[in-house]
């Protein structure tokens, strides 16, 4: 987690120094993670889960900055609500701030290259980032069971995926629709923001602005 976080801090400082007009958009990206990750939504498995809201941040500023913004939200939750917690902060940041959003960003880039509009591209980027966050969580939990109690990885993975990933499918669709609508609003009112998004690199270690 640390290398991504450090790169994210460097990139964030560069963005704010070279493009001070971006301050509000950076705050907006963080605000979406704050707002959407706080919602507990019902799902088809009869349980509730949180969406992640990382789609906007990763599409506009890349994985490094997304990991920094996600970590701020995770620290807020760990500090005040003991939700997530400090001992699992690294694992949560890897799933919610790094790997999930990275896969979402890849979808964004591929769809934009293929000529898809902002609405469709953001829908898939946000939904996939959300869903993959929970797939990574299931992998982390399964690996923990393998190393701590010697569980069979495949069995643990099937159980964890059924708890996390299946629950997350409708939530990922809802998150995709909400963020796609907001991206459409931005595309029609502040198209300049997407110039930065489209010049953004998939490489999480790039600090190019």
């Amino acid at each position: 987690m640390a290398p991504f976080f450090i790169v994210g801090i460097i990139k964030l400082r560069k963005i704010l120094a070279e493009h001070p007009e971006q301050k509000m958009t950076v705050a907006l990206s963080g605000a979406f993670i704050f707002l959407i990750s706080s919602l507990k939504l019902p799902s088809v498995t009869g349980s509730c889960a949180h969406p992640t809201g990382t789609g906007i941040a990763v599409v506009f500023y890349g994985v490094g900055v997304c990991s920094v913004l996600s970590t701020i939200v995770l620290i807020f939750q760990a500090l005040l609500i003991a939700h997530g917690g400090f001992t699992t902060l690294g694992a949560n940041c890897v799933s919610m701030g790094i790997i999930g959003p990275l896969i979402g960003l890849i979808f964004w880039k591929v769809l934009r290259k293929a000529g898809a509009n902002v609405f469709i591209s953001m829908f898939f980027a946000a939904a996939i980032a959300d869903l993959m966050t929970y797939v990574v969580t299931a992998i982390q939990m399964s690996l923990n069971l393998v190393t701590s109690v010697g569980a069979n990885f495949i069995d643990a993975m099937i159980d964890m995926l059924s708890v996390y990933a299946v629950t997350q499918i409708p939530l990922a669709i809802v998150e995709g629709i909400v963020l796609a609508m907001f991206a459409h609003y931005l595309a029609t009112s502040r198209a300049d923001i997407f110039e930065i998004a489209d010049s953004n690199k998939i490489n999480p270690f790039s600090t190019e602005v």
Partner: protein
Amino acid sequence: MANDKMIYIVGFAVVAIMVVGILAFVPGDYGGSDDAGGEEAEKYGYVPWLTDWIDAIYGELPGEIEAMLFAVQSAIGAVIIGYFIGTNSARKKMAAGAAAE
């Protein structure tokens, strides 16, 4: 413009139908999947090695207080998003006013 409005109307309608439809037709206690993951791990014999530090201070955090703290988190995000939309539409109006003059 009419097309834009249609996108927002259809989008919010789909979200509302999904959420209300799930609550109406899917039976369940709607507990958190985070807790369900922990319970699943305990079925394998996993024993958590640390309890929430906050429990030592408050005792177990009551559901109402937890909901209030999540609401505070939502509010922080919503205020920033609202501020952005407000300044954005004010900027658009000012630009339109300047162009008209």
